[in-house]
């Protein structure tokens, strides 16, 4: 039998992190965020992608529940969406924009171009504020529906309306916690770019998800 010479590991060292923990505990020298170097594969971002896959699946399940439930129901009415949803959509879109500004500033701060932490912090705070504003807006939408006498159990349309907006709002709250985490890391100058990227990935996804849900609610409910 021919002897096989084992191939030497072919993966280039520059692209891989072999610390056994994704390099997540690399301590920046003297708390200086500027010396932190990111690797191509980092668990934070991969983790968020995987979580987003699961979240997509959950919303797909709820969507198919809506479609099936609508299919079997007689006299599926229509409810007019509270108009605030549309302006609220712009609030959420704006928060994605401010988050991207924050990303630029964080990068230039980490590169030493920008010396002031306050600038990226400001953009992050703006994003956080817009996120909270969005939640407040959704809450107003619920109040508006209530004032029309439409509660969670009133009819199927209203059930699905509260369900989708409620579950989405819960995910936005999770994103807000992520933002607070990023801000606290930045505050202590130990923010890794991958942490930021993971948070942003999640936030933008929630934004896109909301656009999808709005379309779904608008056309179906």
């Amino acid at each position, binding site marked *: 039998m021919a002897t096989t010479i084992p191939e030497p590991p072919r993966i280039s060292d520059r692209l891989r992190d072999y610390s056994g*923990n994704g390099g997540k505990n690399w*301590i920046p020298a003297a708390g200086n965020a500027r010396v932190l170097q990111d690797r191509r594969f980092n668990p934070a971002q991969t983790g968020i992608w995987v979580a987003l896959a*699961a979240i997509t699946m959950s919303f797909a399940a709820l969507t198919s529940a809506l479609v099936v439930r609508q299919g*079997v129901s007689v006299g599926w009415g229509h409810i007019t969406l509270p108009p605030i949803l549309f302006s609220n959509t712009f609030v959420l879109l704006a928060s994605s924009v401010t988050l991207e500004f924050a990303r630029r500033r964080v990068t230039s701060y980490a590169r030493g171009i920008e010396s002031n932490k306050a600038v990226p912090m400001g953009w992050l705070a703006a994003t956080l504020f817009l996120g909270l504003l969005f939640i407040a807006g959704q809450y107003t939408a619920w109040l508006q529906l209530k004032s029309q006498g439409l509660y969670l159990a009133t009819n199927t349309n209203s*059930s699905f309306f509260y369900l989708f907006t409620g579950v989405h709002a819960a995910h936005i709250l999770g994103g807000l916690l992520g933002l607070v985490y990023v801000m606290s890391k930045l505050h202590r100058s130990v923010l890794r770019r991958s942490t930021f990227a993971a948070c942003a990935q999640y936030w933008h996804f929630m934004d896109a998800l909301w656009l999808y849900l709005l379309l779904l609610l608008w056309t179906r409910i």
Partner: protein
Amino acid sequence: MAETTAHAAVHHAPPQGFIRKYIFSIDHKVIGIQYTTLSLVAAFIGMVLSWAMRIHLAWPNAHIPILGWLSPNGAPGGVMTPEYYLSLMTMHGTIMAFFVLTAAPMAGYGNFMLPIQVGAADMAFPRLNMASFWVTFIGFLLACATFFIPDGPPLSGWTAYAPLSAVGSVAGPGQGWGQNLWGLSIALFCVASLLGSLNFIVTTLDLRTKGMKLSRMALSTWAWFINAWVSLLAFAVLLPTCLLLVLDRLAGTSFFIPGGLVFNDQLQPHSGGSPLLFQHLFWFFGHPEVYIIILPAFGIVSHIMPTFIRKPLVGGWKVITFAEIAVGTLSFVVWGHHMFVSGMSPYMAMVFSVPTLFITIPSVIAVLVWVFSLYGANIRFDTPLLYSLGFISLFITGGIGGFFLAQPSTDSYLHATSFVVGHFHFTMGLSAIFATFAGFYYWFPKMFGRMLNEKLGKLHFWLSFIGVYCVFITMQLTGMTGAVRRYSALVDDFMVPLLPAYRFMTIAALLLGAAQLIFLYNAIWSRFKGPKAPDNPWGATTLEWDTTSPPPFDNFGGRQLIVYHGPMQYDGEKSEMQTSPAPSIAGT
């Protein structure tokens, strides 16, 4: 600089103090053992429940005093009511399917072994890992708590079909708070499984050591990795399903409850909901779930076999892995085969029957790989191998039943008979348990640093193997005569002559349970008194055998491993560790 610290493979420092070390530990090895122990306790409870049911089936008037004490209403004087029988059945299924079969082979062994097998120091997110265990634990406590509330556990089965599960206490004992706790318990289990899957996936993708290409991963790692994806996508559907169920129960919505429904002479204040929707959602999760249970078993057996047959599996890592990927993928499109007689359109039944027959192809390929690999092998019949062979046997036996269930015409007869119950106990229940035992006998030396007693192990194997066949072949046969599933008594005339068969199953089941005491004794005695285990007692090649037994806190004592080849470098007695560059064996 950051770089230098990184290459010294710094991880979280070893914890100090009992609580941090053994209770709220973030060490994947401790968490793995915690999961395994939880499953062991759960398995014991589940088994005792099955005894109570079987005793009642064989001797309907038998007094079981402890039941009378546990539930004065459910079992007045120790004789259970039909409703209480259903409650026991529900909790048997729930505990076994979720807290034993889903937890042990994946979260238990996977947590302990996966990071080591890829050469990492821990899971990617150790804190999240700890959270998954404790959330599972709370879920388990909630499930057990149902026994101690006045109404007792729910009676809607592990599938919790709506509207029975959705309308509340009017539907029967246990359908009030019992079903609420059940829903909460399963929702927590979903959350924990999602977090666990996330950890498994990211660890496998990002934390592999130098040279550990995907093609060189241990076959168990492969199965856990594939399974983590299936589990991620399936539990992501069960979680919102639980949410809808709970809303129907507590918030008055009508997702699953149709209008005009009368329970106990009371018209239910709901309208328009769809019970079929629940079945679709449940089985969209439920069918993948049965493969979530069996895929780790595939992996464990494929991982163990080469070591004991001293040669690579036929087809190398590729065939078995691709079979697993195919099974995992197809498992998402066959769910309707559980609903052939649910009132679903018969055309839909055809649509689901075809992929169901297709999914048998990769399953059969996997079986053929294991069987053909034995050909011409120099087999070492140690306990782990015996259990692996037992797994293959049970899986084949159960799978054959699947062919008949997969066709709507035969299934309309077999559905809701104990044929189905026998089928899934073979394919899923006992197959996975046998693979779990195989893993236990194989990895015990690594996990605890002691060897198990081989003689007791073999005795345990043979008694279990024979016992399982006695119980479940008989169950399938009675099912073919039409014995109805989920009945607490032989009520129909045609069922009465089955009594001797029922008694035979009960006695066999009790003996089978007694045989598990051998296992328990062996495990506990060996844990403290067994001979010290060497680092690599089986002459295996994967990374978990390349460190001490048990491994140190950071798994390899600061060593940076380099992997040169795949895990199946066996040639008769010779074998080559994955970390050894020696070229003497051509394996896979």
